[in-house]
């Protein structure tokens, strides 16, 4: 596994309500949270963490529009200039017949484009392994992690104790 060279101290919580209050007290004390892990999306976590709204959907719109243009202009060129064929006595440029394919390509471009963009931005993809701090993060525990470079070990430990973490560990990733 590729080492990130980071020393992480993390605490596990039993309940998402504990996690939410812990995260808000950490942000209140200006502690730099490395990351927060949970087995399912926790409502109201993003605004407390101060995460910005994702801009992925803007990319999605652009990919979709590209798909629309590719399909529509492509078919227009093929059926009027490149290789005109008469289908069912319809005109060469039959807009209603183009609509389903235009729709399909819009969806395809948007979906594939957004997936690829998402993987590239997050540094994920084939061969990448992400370090797992604790197995039960994907089961029933909620985790807050600090990088020991930005948050001192002592203050992290007292923070976890104060906010009711059930388990505190250190791990090199």
């Amino acid at each position: 596994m590729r080492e990130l060279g980071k020393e992480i101290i993390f605490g596990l919580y039993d309940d998402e309500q504990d996690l939410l209050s812990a995260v808000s007290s950490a942000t209140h004390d200006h502690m730099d949270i490395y990351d927060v892990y949970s087995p399912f999306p926790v409502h109201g976590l993003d605004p407390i963490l101060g995460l910005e709204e994702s801009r992925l959907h803007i990319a999605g719109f652009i990919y979709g529009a590209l798909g629309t243009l590719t399909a529509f202009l492509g078919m227009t060129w093929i059926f009027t200039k490149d290789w005109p064929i008469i289908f069912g006595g319809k005109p060469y440029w039959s807009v209603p017949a183009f609509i389903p394919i235009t729709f399909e390509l819009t969806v395809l471009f948007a979906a594939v484009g957004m997936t690829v963009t998402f993987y590239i931005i997050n540094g994920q993809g084939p061969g990448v392994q992400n370090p797992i701090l604790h197995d039960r993060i994907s089961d029933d525990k909620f985790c807050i992690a600090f990088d020991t470079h930005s948050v001192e070990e002592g203050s992290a430990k007292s923070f976890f104790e104060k906010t009711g973490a059930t388990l505190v560990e250190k791990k090199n990733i």
Partner: protein
Amino acid sequence: MTNYSIPSKQRTLLLGGMVIGAICLALTWFMDGTDHHMRFWTNFLHNSVFFTGIALMAIFFYAVCNTAWAGWHVQFKRVWEAMGLFLGVGFILMAIVAVGLVFGWHHLYHWADPASVETDKILEHKSTFLNKGWYLVSIAFIGVWYFFTRKMRGLSLTEDAMGGVKDFSHHMKTRKWTASFLPIVGFSSALVIWQWVMSIDAHWYSTLFAWYAGASLFVSMIAMTILILIWLKSNGYYPNLSLEHFHDLGKFMFAFSIFWTYLWFSQYMLIWYSNNGEETVYFNTRQDEYPVLFYANLAINFLVPFFILMRNDTKRKFGSLITVGLIVIFGHWMDFFLMIKPGALHTAHELGGHSHGGDHGHEAAGHGAAEVGHHAEAATGHGADLAHGAASTFEAGFSMPGFLEIGTMIGFLCLFLYVFYTHLSKASLIAKNDPYLSESLHHHV
């Protein structure tokens, strides 16, 4: 403020709107250019179907949410109950159309004319379904819907009075009624829309029509709900109604606008592709003789909600929701205009001996099968003027919604809102004992 009370200013405004509507209806009756008061009756049918349909969709969606164990809507479910109770008035409105049909006061439906049915093979063949008896059945179904609405409303009100429900027993009892309501609406909504709207183009049929018209009504209902809730909230009611609820309603408006477009296009493309004269006549008339309405229909009911509501934040702002809501309600009202008016005008020409369209009517009546031939020819683009004699000329109240149409719509809208607010004020705005109320109060998307 747990109960809504109608301010006297609002009451005056709504009553004034109803007076405007009544005046417009009277004017259309006396100033009608067509025979048999066709303009009056089409306006009456158009608005009755539209607002009855909105009421049906409200109580239908209420039943869907209840059956699906949904909780997000519970906070404002009284709004849908009150909208659904308009069905009682809708029953009376549609009964007037039905009585007119039985006694021959109007000629909205070509198939109701015995002389035409006798000589027209297609109409004769369809007469097992397109007849006065089945029309009365379709009216009786509004009665059935109203009965179910009253039942659901009653159960909802008894829950309020029960003083704290410990288990789900009462909710389960309500579910029995809401769940059994769904298949009834599923089948009967198709039946009524075929009878009321599709059969105006008596020679034409489309299997997708009921879904398409239903989606149109559904979008209008959601838009109406959004506008009413914004109005109530800005007047201090529903303090716990949050942007999360409006976000969800906005998503419904966005999604069902696309669904409507999907059905509209599916119907259009299949008919365009098979190029069968019996079917293409519907779109041929609308595309050639009503081009502005035909393309505007797509633009305002698809492009506007699609591009405006696509973003996350526009579904969470009152300004954009109000704008789109108003536009799509008017757009779908116009969609129904386009479903009803061209066929009715054609029937008026066929039956009335009006200009030279009448000649064609007699000719067609004489040769039922030849009618289809005409339409096939029309569909290929050579005989459009043959099939519809006077249609290329402007006909007030048919070619475009005029002031009288808009006035009638305002009248019916005010009637709808008046009945709605009256029922809303009769019960507490919040169903305090609903087991899902807490979920609705904490709703988060």
